């Protein structure tokens, strides 16, 4: 079974039973400073491993970039 999720506005198909940490590994995003929202709620870094991804989750992953 696969699930559909949205990551930064893009649709992705993933396997079931994935944690947020698994997803970040799959996206090669475990290095560097990021912050993550799942369905509009911030997930603290300490909960990445325990946060399960569910079908149709909307995930936003952000970083700091140049700006005024």
């Amino acid at each position: 079974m696969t699930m559909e999720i949205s990551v930064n506005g893009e649709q992705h198909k993933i396997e079931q039973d994935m944690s947020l940490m698994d997803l970040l590994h799959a996206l090669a995003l475990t290095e560097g400073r990021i912050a993550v929202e799942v369905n509009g709620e911030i997930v603290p870094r300490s909960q990445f491993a325990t946060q399960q991804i569910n079908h149709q989750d909307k995930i936003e992953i952000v970083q700091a970039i140049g700006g005024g």
Partner: protein
Amino acid sequence: MSLNQDKPLVVAGVEYQSRLIIGSGKYKDFEENLSALEASAAEMITVAIRRVNLGQNKDEPSLLEVISPDRYTMLPNTAGCYTAEDAVRTCRMARELLDGHKLVKLEVLGDQKTLYPNVTETLAAAEILVADGFDVMVYTSDDPLVAKRLEEIGCVAVMPLGAPIGSGLGIRNPYNIRMILENASVPIIVDAGVGTASDASIAMELGCDGVLMNTAIAEAQNPVLMASAMKKAVESGREAFLAGRMPRRLYASASSPIDGTFF
């Protein structure tokens, strides 16, 4: 600066020796940004919060690897937000990203052409953020009543525009900035509008506590040299303010004695 008895700029209980805050947008690369930052002697730098690029080369350095939050005070902004809700969400993401960092630059824009602040949304966002424990430095219009209201809400610094963001038009309404200063008990920092060094000096000569700029440095032909110029401009404007300028007179006043001429 040995002659003057200036106090440091204090924002949210933290002392800064520099009264210049610079941005990190529009630079050629992070290295040029860092060189400009060093030349400016600024201690605080604004950053934007955006989606990571999912396809990005993971060996590419990120901004925070080049400009270290351990060395400089990060000032995450809410640029690009047009509603209080988006601005609050952005600040919360920034706080998570920077390990509980509370200092933010709130800006809620009203219009893409002018980038003027949407004042009602800015006030609403400021209320929520202050209640949520953020230290809010707030970009706003040069309206003295709005500036005072933002201070009353609990913002730690009020940052009126000198002119539209990125316009480089200078301080368009120095009289409004003076009115804001007269009523203020938090730092007043001109944010946006500075085009060149003299604009920064004018802001400081008016009595502003600091100046925030991005484009004036980043879009200069030589950004690092302009950063150095801005450092001096902010310092000299501040010293001139503390020194107290002479009164303006309509007519001349001779500098050499009138008596003792031999002709």
